[in-house]
């Protein structure tokens, strides 16, 4: 045979495939079939490639097993051994059933992941279509970068699987079916069993105690359903089956739950009452009923059902939140030390505060927490209050001075009578006016402000022209530096002489004209300064040139 490095788990002879006789081999990682008498395998499929197996129904003549691959193609094996066909097929099927799941996960997961990624990201999908389908790059390259994290995140993915909750009606789903002769069939699936165990831990306890030593599973469940425990009205609790203890435990549990109360302080259960308005719409006082016994029976049966329902609901909720219980407690603890409600911490229990917060605020409407800030700690804050007045040695007034001054002023003002005709002497008035007139002592700053009003507009226009011309000349002059070429040298010298000419012919007359008009304003000072700078630069350059030449 071909080099069998793998372990052979099962060999089935007389298996036909496509009308050929052969042998089916099931190995550690794959299933293979080879025709009779030949050495090699014609068909070999890895378990990872097999999506599922199918078997022909029992009634059919041909005993067949079909393997469906992920790619969609299928292979059919026909077990043609007369006597043992069914057994062979069952054996093969069982083995495959055990082996396939192991390999299934890996392949499936990868493929699933790929599919998911392609579905979630349309861009990626488009990319895939463009590159891989049109065979620009192979699929392996495409997925090489993207699937890197798949195998690593296996465990985390399985951890993030959500807990499946318990349906509240799981017991009702167990609908009994009549089987024709006065009996009932309850169909129990694994899910329902699990729900029962999670909701009623007492039942689980009984199960673990009794099965499989005392009762078989079937018997256990039969007695469960037969017991009064299961049925609705279990008034008499005196029966002797194993579930009467459970009933007692349930009673105890219910009582403790009632005592514990509801954690939500915003709900007040005690104010609810199950009362119907009798005749009179509540105005009539309820007559002390003489027929107490009547009511008691109805009441008790009603209350038994109600109690049972309440208990069932409570157990379902408790089972569902059992895992999350610790989390909720922690959350309430941390939120009670939240900075939002620090002041009422001492007065209200933390749970109530959490409930109140939940009722008042929506978490996603809350403003995001601002950045953590450090408090400002000022040691000498009175420094800020001191104005920008330099600390000078104030004139020290002795207390004697103070007393003297105060006495003096009081003496003076005691006989004060307004003498409005003698407020101002004409000399002082005229000197004040002089000081306030333009050019006076107090008016010095004013002249510069009004310079554009004091100069006539033609003069201003001329000044503008001068500035434009001078600016152009100076621009040419300064652009010659650094002087690298002989052309620039010539230009520099020429520009300098131009500047001088300009100064002589245009600037000087302008200055004289202004002076003649007795305007003390210095309009050309800036222009002069610019020219002087240019001359200075020229001088420096010339000196350097001389020094270089010599």
């Amino acid at each position: 045979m071909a080099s069998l490095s793998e372990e052979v788990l099962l060999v089935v002879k007389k298996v036909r495939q496509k009308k050929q006789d052969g042998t089916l081999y099931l190995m550690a990682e794959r299933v293979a079939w080879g025709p009779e008498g030949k050495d090699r395998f014609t068909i070999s499929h890895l378990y990872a490639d097999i999506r599922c197996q199918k078997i022909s129904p029992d009634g059919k003549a041909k005993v067949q097993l079909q393997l469906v691959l992920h790619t969609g193609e299928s292979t059919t094996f026909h077990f043609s051994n007369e006597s043992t066909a069914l057994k062979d097929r069952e054996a093969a099927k069982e083995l495959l059933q055990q082996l396939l799941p192991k390999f299934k996960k890996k392949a499936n997961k990868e493929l699933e992941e790929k599919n998911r990624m392609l579905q979630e990201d349309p861009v990626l999908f488009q990319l895939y279509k463009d590159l891989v389908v049109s065979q620009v790059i192979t699929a392996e390259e495409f997925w090489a970068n993207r699937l890197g994290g798949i195998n690593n995140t296996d465990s985390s993915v399985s951890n993030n699987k959500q807990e499946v909750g318990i349906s509240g009606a799981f017991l009702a789903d167990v609908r009994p079916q009549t089987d024709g002769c006065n009996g009932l069939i309850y169909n129990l699936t694994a899910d329902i069993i699990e729900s029962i165990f999670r909701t009623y831990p007492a039942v689980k306890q009984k199960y673990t105690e009794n099965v499989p030593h005392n009762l078989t599973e079937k018997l256990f469940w039969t007695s469960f359903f037969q017991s009064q425990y299961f049925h609705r009205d279990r008034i008499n609790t005196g029966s002797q089956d194993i579930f009467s203890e459970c009933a007692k435990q349930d009673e105890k549990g219910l009582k403790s739950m009632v005592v514990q109360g509801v954690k939500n302080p915003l709900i007040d259960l005690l104010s609810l009452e199950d009362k119907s308005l009798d005749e009179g719409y509540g105005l009539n006082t309820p007559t002390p009923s003489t027929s107490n016994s009547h009511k008691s029976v109805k009441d008790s049966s009603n209350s038994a059902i109600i109690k049972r329902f309440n208990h069932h609901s409570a157990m379902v909720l408790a089972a569902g939140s059992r895992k999350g219980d610790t989390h909720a407690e922690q959350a309430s603890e941390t939120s009670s030390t939240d900075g939002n409600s620090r002041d009422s911490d001492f007065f209200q229990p933390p749970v109530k505060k959490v409930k109140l917060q939940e009722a008042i605020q929506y978490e996603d409407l809350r403003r995001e927490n601002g950045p953590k800030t450090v408090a400002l700690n000022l040691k000498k804050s009175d420094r800020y209050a001191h104005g920008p007045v330099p600390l000078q040695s104030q004139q020290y007034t002795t207390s004697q001075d103070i007393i003297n001054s105060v006495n003096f002023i009081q003496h003076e003002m005691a006989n004060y009578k307004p003498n409005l005709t003698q407020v101002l002497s004409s000399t002082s008035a005229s000197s004040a006016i002089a000081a306030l007139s333009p050019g006076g002592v107090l008016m010095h700053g004013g002249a510069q402000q009004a310079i554009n009003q004091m100069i006539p507009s033609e003069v201003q226009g001329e000044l503008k022209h001068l500035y434009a011309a001078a600016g152009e000349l100076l621009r040419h002059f300064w652009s010659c530096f650094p002087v690298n070429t002989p052309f620039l040298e010539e230009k520099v010298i020429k520009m300098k002489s131009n500047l001088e000419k300009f100064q002589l012919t245009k600037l000087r007359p302008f200055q004289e004209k202004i002076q003649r008009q007795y305007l003390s304003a210095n309009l050309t000072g800036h222009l002069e300064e610019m020219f002087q700078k240019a001359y200075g630069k020229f001088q420096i350059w010339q000196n350097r040139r001389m020094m270089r030449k010599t």
Partner: protein
Amino acid sequence: MFAFSAEDEVNLLVIVVDVNPIWWGQQAQRDTEFTLSKCIDAVMVLGNSHMAMSRTNKLCIIASHCQDSHFLYPCKSWRGGDGRDEDTSSSGDGKYELLSVANNLMADEIRSVMLKSKVKGNSTDTMLAGSLAKALCCILLHQPLFQCVLVSVQVIKAADDCALQYMNFMNVIFAAQKQNILIDACVLDADSGLLQQACDITGGLYLKIPQKVALAQYLLWVFLPDSEQRSQLMLPPPAHVDYRAACFCHRNLIEIGYVCSVCLSIFCNFSPICTTCE
């Protein structure tokens, strides 16, 4: 009762007079020509002129003392109405009655203020910030009723600045700026940096007068016109205000300093740890 047409613009002038008795007492001893009486006379002249400019002008005078501020006019003890005393109301020279009443009231009040003054040794500074705050309150009290369009506060300052009132002072100044209230300052003795800032920020005029004797002339020339009229007149140009900050360690005015990035305190020398906040 108050029926104002649209043209009736109420022009409210509040005059804050510094009546620091210590400074005025020393001043009287230095120079007998210009005393507190003369100063009050000049203020009265300004007030009368302001009220005479228009029927709808209003006046308010506050005296700023070492301990507190007093309203000289209008005051609570106004004996107006029917029971008018003949002597006080008619001054015999045909003066507008409002003016004579106002003058008499002012004189009475200032007399009582100065006579009551008992100065303690540690508080020798004028309560200028407080007086300004009172002035602002008085203005805001009248504003909804009178629709005051032009409001100005005239400060006549005698004594020196008090550094401790800096914070309050700046708050008052910024409040005045927000309310479009002008603060004018007429300084008699020493330049006041705070008042310079106040005038600069609110758009008023600051003037340090060279001759105290001619105070009335300066007041009438420079400060009587309201802000609209001032734009048409040639008035003393605004002084250059020294906005330099003072360092926290020596209180020197500095141009370039080091500022702590946490507490914003200013130092003249670099130091790795700020002494205010560390």
